[in-house]
């Protein structure tokens, strides 16, 4: 599962591996509470950002199950670092992958994640031959839910009060898409009207 060439280019973005020198840029958004909420391994201090970038810059391919590929989202027009997207190969026999993402809140709402995640779905299905890609997000994160539906992902799970997060009841949503569904849509869908965003799990 190698042979990837970086950067991966989309209309407005260059997706490329992290570099040590990215620490300063990453610190600008990484420690914001809104960003921390969705991280697998939360961090609090600047040293943690160092450690985090160190981990991410080594995540450059999927050699074996359990590996993660993490790419920085760099805006082509001015080289600004907007956040990152990553693909985690969670299960080899059943071909499962998980997408995660972080965006600097200052740059959200411009469709950058839609662009980057579409490229990651292409990569997951066409290059890595993954069968199903899923995303987990906070049940109250309407932005993510909207984004997932725009990408054609289906709401597969909506857990309520299934766990505690920092002393409060958590709510979690899972979205998923199969390889054949992505091939069939392949284009980013028009947005659903607002009232259809929180459909019941079918």
């Amino acid at each position, binding site marked *: 599962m190698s042979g990837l060439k970086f950067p991966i280019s989309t209309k407005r973005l260059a997706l490329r591996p992290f570099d040590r020198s990215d620490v300063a840029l990453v610190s600008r958004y990484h420690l914001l509470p809104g960003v921390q909420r969705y991280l697998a391994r939360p961090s609090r201090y600047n040293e943690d950002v160092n450690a985090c970038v160190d981990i991410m810059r080594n995540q450059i391919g999927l050699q074996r199950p359990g590996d993660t590929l993490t790419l920085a989202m760099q805006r082509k027009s001015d080289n600004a670092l907007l956040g990152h997207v990553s693909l985690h190969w969670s*299960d080899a*026999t*059943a071909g*499962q992958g998980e997408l995660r993402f972080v965006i600097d809140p200052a740059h959200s709402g411009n469709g950058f994640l839609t662009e980057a995640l579409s490229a990651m779905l292409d990569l997951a299905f066409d290059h890595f031959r993954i*069968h*199903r890609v*899923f995303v987990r997000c906070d049940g109250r994160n309407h932005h993510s839910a909207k984004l997932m539906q725009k990408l054609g992902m*289906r709401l*597969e*799970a*909506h*857990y*309520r*009060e*299934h*766990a*505690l997060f920092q002393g409060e009841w958590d709510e979690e949503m*899972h979205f*998923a898409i*199969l390889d054949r569904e992505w091939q069939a849509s392949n284009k980013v869908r028009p947005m659903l009207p607002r009232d259809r965003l929180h459909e*019941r*799990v*079918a």
Partner: protein
Amino acid sequence: MSYLPDYPIVTPRLRLRPFTRGDVDAVHEYRCREDVALYLFDPPLSREECALAIHQRVLQTEFHQEGDKIVLAVEEVERARLVGEMSLVWRSADARQGEIGWIFHPMHQGRGYATEAARALLALGFEGAGLHRIFARCDARNTSSWRLMERLGMRREAHFREHALFKGEWDEEFIYALLHREWRTE
């Protein structure tokens, strides 16, 4: 925090009680069947495997730590015969989560026994063990199991498609759940 229920638990038609060594044959009678095992994680069990399972279940009657299971024999009061089994697993101590499960002899299905036994076990979980949320899982094709979940007032929280392989095929799974406060108002 340990929880040691009082047994037996008696409902109008049933008695839920700990397993005893004498239950091996009655359990083998349904756990050996292909139709019963169709959507279960375990394949049909031999008599020896049943004996081993019962050996473990004799002690599975209390919650002491996360991961503990309560597995109970369900007996028809009228004829004092074993008709199935119920389980409740303590999945999380801090978030007070439990998972419920059921297996009945096909001969005794279709009479509402599973519903009756499940209601008693939900009461045990919510009131006795102080659980906050109880969930159940099943294969999407296991209609009698998810219809039972709906009868119990559980909500469908997940419908996973092709998220794993089960017995060599793509798996499709439902997860249903019920919160303590929803159970009370039911």
